[in-house]
């Protein structure tokens, strides 16, 4: 009898890139629902706009690069990029802002570097930073979270959609009426105005730890993150690294001088810290690969977030921290190579 020859190992791999990406998306669903609950349906429109442009950008770039477009679309990585971008955007964001971010992320940060697997920078964060510096006013317009006791002008679904499409609020409304400072903004401007951190925390947007509403979204992101950890889609080194890098300096300074700096709980639950720890920094393509390297990479991101929040001119520093550490990845990988079994450390090829 005749047989066909195949290559060892003759065994099936159970994972594939598409299922990894789908699981990441699934893990974001609780947080997405919470986001819609607290900040209105704008998140859905942002997600749709970002997805459409990310997918279109990916398809066009694949075609330009002479590859089958459907191959790139079937791995869902463009949608993950779009989802992360949507989480970073205020719920009231005009479509062209979102589109710019999605296209820059996918076309420039991803495909001009060679596509999935070759991009040095996290596409979602690269896109976010570009729109942050291009459309700064739009990205500071966060509506107040839906909490009973906060004076809140409610935008209907139609009004939100109209804003997304035109960038104009309904006639009767002004931005001042619908938007509120984010907790990080409130903290930054309060501290700049010589208020103490404790005074700033009396602001009604502040919750138990971070911002009201925000900290609930943070909880739901963490649930998704722990699920990914259990599924071994991500490993603990980066999330823990981010946490340690952010919370250790925050705690030390808070203990020394509680007046000028918010506590570790605020740093963890305000802004995008938790999203960064579980979903942004853990993007494998742009992160360090070795076990030790990943911890150091996370540590660097956490520490930079804290630095930017404390000394930078931006309220949050997640995107910048991630992009800066993306640049450090080759060096981290070089110096954290594991010792090959049977070699002594420091010997040829062992870091």
């Amino acid at each position, binding site marked *: 009898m005749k*047989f066909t020859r*195949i290559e060892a190992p003759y*065994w099936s*791999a159970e994972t594939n890139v598409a299922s990894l990406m789908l699981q990441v998306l699934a893990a974001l669903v609780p947080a997405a629902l919470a986001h819609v609950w607290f900040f209105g349906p704008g998140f859905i429109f942002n997600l749709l706009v970002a997805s459409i442009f990310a997918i279109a950008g990916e398809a066009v770039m694949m075609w330009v690069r002479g590859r089958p477009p459907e191959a790139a679309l079937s791995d869902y990585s463009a949608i993950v990029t779009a989802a992360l971008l949507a989480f970073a955007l205020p719920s009231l964001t005009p479509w062209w802002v979102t589109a710019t971010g999605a296209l820059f992320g996918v076309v420039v940060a991803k495909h001009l570097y060679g596509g999935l697997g070759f991009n040095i920078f996290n596409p979602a964060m690269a896109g976010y930073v570009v729109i942050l510096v291009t459309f700064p006013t739009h990205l500071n317009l966060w509506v107040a979270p839906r909490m009973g006791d906060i004076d809140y002008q409610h935008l209907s679904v139609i009004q939100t959609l109209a804003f997304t499409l035109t960038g104009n609020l309904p006639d009767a409304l002004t931005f001042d009426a619908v938007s509120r400072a984010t907790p990080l903004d409130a903290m930054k401007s309060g501290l700049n105005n010589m208020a103490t951190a404790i005074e700033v925390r009396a602001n009604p947007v502040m919750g138990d730890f971070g911002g009201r509403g925000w900290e609930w979204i943070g909880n739901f992101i963490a649930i998704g993150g722990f699920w990914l950890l259990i599924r071994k889609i991500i490993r603990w080194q980066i999330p823990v690294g981010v946490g340690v890098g952010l919370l250790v300096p925050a705690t030390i300074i808070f203990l020394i001088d509680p007046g000028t700096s918010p506590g570790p709980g605020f740093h963890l639950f305000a802004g995008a810290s938790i999203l960064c720890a579980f979903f942004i920094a853990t993007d494998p393509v742009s992160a360090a690969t070795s076990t030790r390297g990943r911890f150091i990479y996370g540590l660097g991101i956490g520490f930079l977030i804290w630095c930017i929040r404390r000394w930078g001119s931006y309220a949050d520093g997640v995107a910048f921290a991630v992009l800066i550490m993306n640049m450090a990845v080759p060096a981290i990988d070089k110096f954290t190579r594991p010792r090959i079994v049977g070699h002594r450390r420091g010997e040829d090829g062992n870091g």
Partner: protein
Amino acid sequence: MRTVRRALPRGLHHDETIVVSAPTYDLGKLHGGLRLPSHKQGSAAKAIVDVPVPPQLMLPVEQHVGHPAQPVVAVGDTVLKGQLLAEPDGELGAPVHASSSGKIVAIEPWPVSRRLGDKAPCIVIECDGRDQPMPAIASEDYTSQTPADLLLRILDGGIVGLGGAVFPTAQKLMQARTCETEFLILNGVECEPYISCDDVLMREHATEILSGAQVLLHALQVDTCFIAVESDKPEAIARLEEVLSDINDERIVLKLVPTIYPSGGEDQLVQLVTNREVPSGGLPTDVGCIVQNVGTAAAVHDWILRNEPLISRVTTITGDGVASPVNVRARIGTPVEKVIQHAGGYTELARHLIIGGPMTGKSVTTDDVPVVKASNCVLVVSTPPFKGKELACIRCGDCAAVCPVQLLPQQLSWYARADDEEKLREFGLTDCIECGCCDLVCPSHIPLTADFRIAKGRIRELADEKARAERARQRFEARNQRLVQEREEREAELARQKQSAKSAGPAAIAEILKRKQQARKDDSA
């Protein structure tokens, strides 16, 4: 059996007064590895089936690491079972014996299960069906033999490592004798899925294995033997314990290792059992260990105590491509086709024939290949539903997490495809044991192990080429030097002639000139 007074897993400490029949657990730790579905139940549950002698036996002369053996028989000779057919050639090798009696009908290339070559020289025996053995010779009691004599005797048995690596056992033992070897480790781990030949051998022939271990201990003059068995083989463990308590040999200790692939790799096992790392490019003997498969120990017993050379082995016939997976004892040289019949024949799923296990075996195109000393498993499988389209690496690092040698397979694959030999060396390509773990976990379905095999081959070729170029350069330089030397010698001779002519005086010079003129005239005429 030795009393165990060591912490057991999960902090279970045994009362010291109780003689613990439980074996000791591993001390070392293995990086990475995978827990794979075992697929062994079907074949391991049944007793070993003896495959009758087939009409024809194909015995490759190269069934071991080293040089092919040199045939000492000719076509037309009649041979008896156990008769020497080919003897080792050079320092490294093993003899080949007739697996049954009959007539040599050919010595010709035949399909074999090697990775690259399709055919290799085989001695073909037309069996007479009588299975007539060699006349028995009274064998000396091995305990009265010196280790050196015993090693030479083991060499004559044609015994090689039966775990699949087929390194000649006698030479391995001899090498270990030159080092300070402390431990003999018998490998009964059998971590690769589907394969259960060592498991059933331990269940049915524990006595022979342990007796073989005693022979090996004597040959090595070593005082400690660890028998390493994976913890998922309770029947084999129970049987070994039983026999161990019968023979009451303090030197032999049973060790359980965790059920993780590839804990049965030679270096990995040393690491697990002794917590010592075999240095890169080195041998277990560098850390005082020598590893032998349990099947090899049984073969040593058969040869030394029963005078039967290595002419048969236990092989697992399994996979969804055969009707009834089973372990068989087949004569070396039996065509796989004949063996398959004892597993109920092929099913309609049979698409690929693999000699060896699903992780490291060799895929062959025909079942004409014979069962050889290396064949621990014959795996017949349907087209696996695996290896979707290959995508770019997303640097997830899962490959590095499972690598038992702690390599960075994704980096290696990058350099392998870029053909960057220097980087490949730096990142430890030569340390890769080709276990296939990285392949299995890769979400992008990159054929990492195949890449590494190809890269290793290319580096070997390159080294060969370099060696050839170096030899050519040396020849060229030697030739140049010879030419220079010849010219110098000629010039020196000329100068000497001139000198002697000068000293002979004008008359002699005139005489010489005249002779030369005469010669020139003759030439032109």
